[in-house]
């Protein structure tokens, strides 16, 4: 076993860290309370730095990276609290395209890698607990194609996506693993409406409504009725990416809290002198180390294709929802009133973690899946 980065991976880590430090004004981004359109300059830099090419095969114009490279990138982006649609466009959209066959890859990956294509994946439905197989939105076969009707909630990056990947039922009923299909559609198509909004962490999303949307048969991405397997593999990668981002964010929360405890004085001493708080910070430190271990375990198992890889991904997401959440809450608590302000970064990291915990199933769902796996 070897947990050290290769020279190339180390260079990637350094370059992301440098960009976050010098090239990115996180403070200004945090201050902004409006739903901002995509920062085109930022996305162009992502393309120029090669980050958009990271997980794609060299044959497809990519850099041939895998989950470890994504981890390296995402952990630094998490540390810098960078707001960018990397997961929706590259990890989710790109992951599904990678698995959709050569025609889809050839048609769309070059644009994605060059930063000219924004994607969004529409999964969540109103008043339905998250699980791909719980999908109810229907795609009815009709002459020459399909007709889609229904609504999707919280489509990440849906407000700025050039194309949407929509999970729908071409057969079966909610709960069935078969009968799920993915469709490619664009926001300008008849019957498609998007209501953009912010999410709690300052990212953006949209509510998607489909009313009698007629799609040609070619809009079907991958096998009819066979979306679940590629979707699950892609979601694993998204959970790893978000897990890495979360670990980066949590490490900042721990560092900031320890630093604050050393400088904030009450009762004539730094509050870090109080044993009650020392123990709490020691627990935060242990939680972070445990999460980092799960992140590495899951990432390496997925990268190497181990049979129990998905189980480790569930473990990571479950523990993030429990211990990561607790760590973030402690960070606020130990900052006292200051922790509740919009001014300090702590609250913003807290909100990003809250969002990550809410995406793609919470702790309970992943604990249950772990037990069943």
């Amino acid at each position, binding site marked *: 076993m070897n947990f050290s980065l290769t020279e190339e991976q180390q260079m990637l880590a350094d370059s992301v860290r440098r960009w976050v430090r010098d090239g990115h004004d996180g403070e200004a981004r945090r201050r902004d*309370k409006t739903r901002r359109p995509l920062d085109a300059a930022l996305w162009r830099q992502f393309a120029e730095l090669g980050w958009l090419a990271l997980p794609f095969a060299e044959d497809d114009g990519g850099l041939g990276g895998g989950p470890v490279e994504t981890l390296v990138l995402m952990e630094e982006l998490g540390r810098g609290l960078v707001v960018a649609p990397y997961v929706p466009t590259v990890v989710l959209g790109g992951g599904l395209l990678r698995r959709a066959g050569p025609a889809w890859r050839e048609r769309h990956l070059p644009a994605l890698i060059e930063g000219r294509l924004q994607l969004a994946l529409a999964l*969540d439905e*109103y*008043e*339905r*607990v*998250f*699980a791909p*197989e*719980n999908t*109810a939105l229907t795609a009815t076969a009709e002459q020459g194609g399909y007709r889609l009707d229904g609504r999707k*909630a*919280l489509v990440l990056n849906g407000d700025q996506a050039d194309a949407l990947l929509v999970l729908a039922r071409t057969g079966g009923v*909610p*709960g069935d693993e078969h009968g799920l299909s993915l469709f490619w559609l664009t926001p300008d198509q008849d019957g498609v409406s998007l*209501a953009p*909004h*912010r*999410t*709690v*962490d300052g990212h953006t*999303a949209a*509510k998607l409504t489909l009313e009698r949307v007629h799609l040609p048969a070619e809009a079907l991405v991958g096998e009819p009725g066979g979306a679940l397997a590629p979707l699950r593999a892609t979601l694993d990668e998204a959970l790893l990416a978000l897990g890495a981002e979360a670990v980066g964010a949590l490490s900042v929360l721990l560092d900031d809290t320890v630093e604050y405890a050393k400088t904030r*004085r*009450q*009762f*004539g001493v730094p*509050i870090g002198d*109080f044993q*009650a*708080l020392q123990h709490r910070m020691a627990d935060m430190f242990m939680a972070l180390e445990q999460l980092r271990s799960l992140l590495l375990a899951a990432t390496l198992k997925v990268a190497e294709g181990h049979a129990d890889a998905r189980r480790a991904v569930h473990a990571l997401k479950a523990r993030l929802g429990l211990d990561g*959440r607790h760590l973030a*809450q402690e960070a*606020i*608590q130990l900052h*006292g*009133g200051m*922790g*509740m*302000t*919009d*001014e300090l970064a702590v*609250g913003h990291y*807290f*909100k990003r973690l*809250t*969002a990550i915990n*809410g*995406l*793609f*199933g*919470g*702790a*309970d769902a992943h*604990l*249950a899946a772990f037990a069943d796996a």
Partner: protein
Amino acid sequence: MDLTIPDHEQSFREEVRDFLARAMTPEIREAGRLTTSVFAPVKQAMDWQRILHEQGWAAPHWPREYGGTGWSVGQRTVFAEELVRAGAPPLIPMGLQMCGPCLIGYGTEEQKAHYLPRILSGEDIWCQGYSEPGAGSDLASLKTFAESDGDHYVINGTKIWTTYAHHANRMFLLVRTRRDGKPQAGITFLLLDMATPGITVEPIVGLDEVPEQCQVFFDNVRVPKANRVGEENDGWTVAKYLLTFERGGQDYAPGLGVQLEQLKARARRQATATGSLADDPLWRRQVADCETRVLALSFTEQRIKSALSAGKDPGALSSMTKILGTELQQRVTELAVDTLGAQALLWQPGALVPGGGEAPLGPEYALTTMASYLNARACSIYGGSNEVQRGIIAKAVLGL
């Protein structure tokens, strides 16, 4: 010992229900639904207080001679329960729960005659000037100084985290009036008019993007000595008395019980492949965990209230209900977020402003769920942090 509910309490419940059904305007109901903090939107909360005051119900816990209702402990619990069940916005506590009881205990006859009716009617809106940038948990280290100048004090310094200072026309505050001796022994309790020259108020934006707290700056602010409550340099006694009310005056259990009922209703509307989230054994366990703790807390609160009405000082027990109530409150908001999954991430602060006219892009409760979760992180910090409360229990109750 028994749990018999007297007949008159049953009929009292009916009376309260009838009244609430009649008296709450649509605006007040909307504000109640959109309240995501212990501090409700100020306009609607004050409108509601005026309606309750007309009925004589604005301050049930005050002694009757000052405008209280003279209700039994049981009746007060019924009233609190029915208020949350009806979805009424909570009344702003700084006047009714804090300043009022304090004046009743320590104010002069003139102060009581002047201020108490105005607190009850809602004519005055109060804020609490205790904390300072350098004096949070260690409140006694506060530095805002009041220099004696004839029959006035001249105040210089700053207060922070002053909730609703930007809405209030009065502040009760702690100032230092002596530089030597024990820190606690040089503190004085004052009342002031927020329109006094030299006061600047700067709102502080919170995690939920709402400016709820403020920093307040004092630059040679002149306050008449007649506005002092208690003796000069004896303000700490008054302040501690008030903190007991701030922590223990509130019943957490009734509100928590109602929130859990609402949460169950929502879970029934979250479909799974086989039914709803409300049938999910993991989810049921989480709710049962909360409900059993709330049941215990409701009886703890009743026990403390019975002791109070028998004339005993709640003392350190108010620290216990503060910790239990706030941590359960945080847990319930957390579970509410989990119940909605990603739908709780929708962030539309404009749709949370009563009368704001912005339509929510999902169920209204999805919007309030996240804002409540964020805001509730504060309740283990304010009113004396839960770490400080645990310290009080260890020292004052356990003698450690």
